[in-house]
């Protein structure tokens, strides 16, 4: 039982890392990034390619993955999302173009990785990192799990506080409320947007590397599954709310583990879609969202 709770918490921490960047980007600069799953997968994939050549330790692998994620995200923002937003007649038309651009963007890295690995799972087994398991009572915890828990909860809570307390955080929230007025107040929108995308990409890269260590390998398609889960998490918690992401991640991870305990594994994927559909019907603004659904 305690073991199950610990496993669910570890999974929730991965979900936090993945969904946090997506939620930030959507809630502040208004881009629902359908390519986020591809960034996640491809940054871990880049680290995998490097470890195949040079056996590296965990810090180096994570650093490579995060850098790759940030670079991919910046390139996407600079080459695709920014031009679409500039050309869009109105916010509504832009929204659809952004979704479609993201879907197209996401397909490219995933199919490249599928081509290179022949759709087989890949991992960092060529690296120098060794998984160690510790017994605490009758609970088994590995060093990977400890690192995931620290990263997920630390970065989740840290980002939430930073958004609330700091001046840059205020600027970001202002962008989410009204981009035009906030740029009149001296906020450099394009630069802040690039920085937010880079941060979100780096978080996706971190999540990718950590999940690969945790499961010991991931498939090129894993990004898509996680993307759909992240929708459920973000909507559950409320768009733009960082604490909402943490709450949503825990609700989803525990619901999935509950389903796993009582049925066989094949229903697990349906949990996130079911939860997403339900919350949209009952409370579209999410559990922690504000009353008004602003981004419609």
């Amino acid at each position, binding site marked *: 039982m305690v073991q199950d709770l610990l496993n669910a918490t570890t999974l929730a921490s991965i979900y936090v890392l993945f969904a946090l960047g997506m939620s930030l980007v959507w809630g502040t600069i208004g881009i629902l990034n359908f390519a986020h799953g591809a960034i996640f997968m491809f940054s871990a994939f880049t680290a995998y390619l490097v470890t195949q050549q040079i056996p590296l330790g965990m810090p180096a692998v994570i650093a490579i993955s995060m850098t790759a994620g940030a670079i991919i995200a910046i390139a996407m923002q600079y080459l695709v999302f920014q031009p679409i937003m500039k050309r869009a007649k109105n916010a509504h038309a832009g*929204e*659809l173009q952004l*979704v*479609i*651009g993201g879907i*197209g963007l996401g397909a490219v890295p*995933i*199919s490249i990785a599928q081509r290179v690995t022949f759709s087989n799972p890949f991992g960092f087994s060529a690296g120098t990192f060794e998984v160690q398991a510790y017994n605490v009572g009758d609970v088994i915890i590995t060093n990977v799990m400890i690192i995931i828990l620290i990263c997920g909860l630390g970065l989740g809570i840290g980002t939430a506080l930073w958004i609330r307390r700091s001046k840059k955080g205020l600027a970001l929230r202002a962008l989410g409320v009204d981009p035009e007025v906030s740029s009149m107040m001296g906020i450099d929108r394009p630069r802040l947007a690039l920085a937010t995308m880079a941060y979100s990409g780096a978080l996706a890269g971190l999540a990718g590397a950590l999940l690969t260590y945790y499961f010991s390998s991931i498939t090129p398609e894993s990004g898509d599954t996680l993307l759909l889960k992240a929708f*459920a998490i973000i909507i559950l918690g409320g768009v733009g709310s960082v604490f909402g992401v943490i709450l949503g991640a825990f609700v989803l991870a525990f619901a999935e583990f509950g389903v796993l305990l009582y049925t066989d594994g094949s229903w697990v*994927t349906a949990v996130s879609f079911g939860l997403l559909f339900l919350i949209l019907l009952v409370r579209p603004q999410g559990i922690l969202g504000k009353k008004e659904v602003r981004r419609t």
Partner: protein
Amino acid sequence: MMGWLDQNEFLIGSTLTVFLLAISIQIPLRLGVISFASIGYYAIGGYGTAILMTQHEVSTWTAIVVSTLVAAIVATLLGLIIARLNGLYLAMATVSFSLLLSAIAVNGGSVTGGAVGLYGVIGDVTAWHAAGIALIVILIVSFSERGKIARRFDASREDPQLASAMGINVTMYRRLSFPISGLLGGLAGALAVNLKSAINPESVNFSLIILALTIIIVGGQASWVGALFGSLFFVWLPEILQFVGDWEEVVYGILVVVAAVLIPGGVVGVFNDWRHRREVAKERPSIALKEAAAGETNEVHAQSQAGKDG
């Protein structure tokens, strides 16, 4: 000619079913509803037909009609349930509806055949039946693309508030788009399962959403011509360009991105812009001549014209 048609009957059939699916997404899109539920309707139509034909020995066309109607009824109910959602929230609700159905298909046991799916659906549907149905659909859809009703569609999409202020019942149009989309999506699935004689969860998952969107975006959102062009292009491209082969998905992805950034109106949009510009360029001298000849009476005429319109 006949030999070529017979050889490529399978490809022609899949072009037409993909076309019907694309139209099923396009009609809500023209009203400003981003709905991916068509994949779900496609699954209902396909699985419904397969279950009726292989497990209950229902005749081909009865099975197709029944499962298409079921898809339309489910679509109507879905439309009523998610009526309060808008924009991206609606898009996500419909994505989760479609994927929920594909999860049910995986877990349906012997009824849906689990991960293997259902096979051996052998009816008497040929690509020519599909062609006839597609032609009827094109005729009906092209009515909605001209005159008053086309302007209503455009207004509801571009500015729903202004449209309702002008007396257009935007809610009614949007709600009506669900059963229509359900009929078309269900029909696409029912025909596809007959032409391919099998259906599995793999064929109704997220990648089908991507394919349908790609077709509409690259072809053009505004007209059935765009959907037809897109279907032809993306079904036949892998056949013609053998060397693309394994890089097919990369090419698709790049094409979608390029289309989304550079030509939001799709290929058809580019063509229409070009034709419009050419016509304007051709008419400009004659308009200038007329204006010069009409002189001052022109202004009076313009005023009376404005009075009539108001």
